[in-house]
């Protein structure tokens, strides 16, 4: 792991009597894409907005390269940029004006601003919409305008709050590639999402937030491995499946969750990919013909369920 870019310590954020973030401790490292996964209302956006100095911590602190969001907000803002969940513009604004103003306020000269805005707008297929009112644009196009701000700004810490919500598949892949390119160019990326595919596809590490707290942290593979017997191996076989075979399989696969019926053996194991070969040996030795083998790893939804007891899509609450 590299240098710590964002250090969150005992962060609490209250809105009246509601605790949106509760004693959050988290380090985000320089040069990584960090995914913050959780349903609406889990505290993701509040955490991101606190890093971006839009919210002030009720307790605790966040440091960005050693600068406190409480004491050194002006310095933090020079390092951090955020693409909000909802596009920020008045309905009478047009995309070109919004992005040109943004480019200039983040430091471009007028000439450079015009050039970079045009480049990014063309890249995101926004150029043809440049003169339209924001109110006339589709949700996906508005979202692209919001994401374009960060592609123009190129901050050291780039925060994307649900960057591909409402986008079509092609645009999603494009945005993911651009986010990874930003990481490769030296930015540290923080992405909040409730899309498990996006989190897994994009993130080097993932933090699972639920009801204001961090429930799990690790790489996607580490998180999946932390589910006991999360891998499911299925053998389609021909031959008699005796109790002895089941016992043998249970021993070599270190699993007490084995079922067999109608020529199908189903085993729940840890690190299934390392044990398939041994299991096949056992079956062959007992004159059982293996017709096919398949293995399913746990999904991030399974991971989320394991750590929170809730399904991601069903657990939404009002947004924090």
């Amino acid at each position, binding site marked *: 792991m590299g240098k710590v870019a964002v250090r969150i310590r005992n962060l609490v954020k209250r809105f009246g009597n509601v605790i949106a973030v509760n004693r959050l401790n988290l380090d985000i490292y320089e040069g990584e894409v960090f995914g913050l996964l959780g349903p609406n209302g889990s505290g993701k956006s509040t955490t991101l*907005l606190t890093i*971006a*100095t839009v919210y002030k911590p009720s307790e605790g602190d966040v440091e960005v390269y050693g600068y406190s969001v409480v004491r050194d907000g002006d310095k933090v803002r020079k390092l951090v940029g955020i693409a909000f969940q909802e596009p920020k513009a*008045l309905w009478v604004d047009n995309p070109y004006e919004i992005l040109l103003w943004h480019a200039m306020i983040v430091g471009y000269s007028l000439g450079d601003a015009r050039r970079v805005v045009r480049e990014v707008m063309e890249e995101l297929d926004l150029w043809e919409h440049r003169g339209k009112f924001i109110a006339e644009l589709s949700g996906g196009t508005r979202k692209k305008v919001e994401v374009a701000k960060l592609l123009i700004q190129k901050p050291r810490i780039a925060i994307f709050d649900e960057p591909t919500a409402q986008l079509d598949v092609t645009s999603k892949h494009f945005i993911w590639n651009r986010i990874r390119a930003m990481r490769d160019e030296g930015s540290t990326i923080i992405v909040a999402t409730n899309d498990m595919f996006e989190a897994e596809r994009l993130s080097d590490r993932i933090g699972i937030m639920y009801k204001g707290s961090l429930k799990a942290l690790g790489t996607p593979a580490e998180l999946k491995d932390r589910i006991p017997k999360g891998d499911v191996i299925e053998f389609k076989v021909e031959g008699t499946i005796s109790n002895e075979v089941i016992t043998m399989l249970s021993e070599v696969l270190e699993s007490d969750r084995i079922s067999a019926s109608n020529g199908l053996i189903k085993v729940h194991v840890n690190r299934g990919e390392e044990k398939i070969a041994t299991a096949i040996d056992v079956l062959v030795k007992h004159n059982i013909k293996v017709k096919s083998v398949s293995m399913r790893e746990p999904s991030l939804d399974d991971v989320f369920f394991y750590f929170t007891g809730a399904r991601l899509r069903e657990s939404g609450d009002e947004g924090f």
Partner: protein
Amino acid sequence: MKGFRALALIILWDVRKLGRYKFFLAMRFTWFLLQVLVFGLIVAHMVSIRGPYGLLDYYKFYVVGAYMAVLFSISIMRGHEIVEELEDGLIDYQLSLPIERRVLAIGRTLGGGISSFTYSMPMLAVIIMVLGVSSLTSILLLALVSFVFSSGLVGIAMSVALWLRSGDKLDILMGISDSLLVRLSTIFYPIVVLTPITIYYYLATINPVSHATDLLRIVSIPEYALGVTVSDSTIMASYILGFTITSILAAITLLERRIEGGYGR
């Protein structure tokens, strides 16, 4: 980014919205013309006020007051725009930008002041014509006083809006303050007629609206300098400047220390 460049861009944020309120301004302007060319003449026929040095032309007194009432209202309206921006998340966006909060506060205040003053310019032009102000210095002074006072009002309106974070609460507070500040001032009543009502008199003398209005009167109709204003021109100018600086400092303090994003939270 350099402070002045950022400041200019923040001012531009408000100024570039100038064209959005054409119908509102046309309506205001029409109403103002009616007020000045119809109601003002009728009221001036009915009202006769004796100042320390003889009878006052209440019509001239009234039209300056009418202009100040419009400038006050337009400036205070910036508070509603701030709430609208808070609701649309634009304040969150601005709070996240790589600029100093004091630059943001000063920029929004001055930008709002420029916009409000620009909105009021057609009305000021009417006043200049009606009162027959021909000196360029007087015209520039009228513009300067209007702009400085408008910026002060915008600073206060912005601070209150960010503090309350609610359109409904702001409506109530601004409605009350509009009623009180405009009525407990010399906008429509010369200070000499308020003297017998002690509380009213003292409230009017400390009200910045009185100072701004009477300063405009001194500049546009110099005969009013003769004992019918709340104070002398230097004190009134200092009062207005002090009010505006205090208002900007309040906005800076709030934005630096207290204000955060999120509508209705």
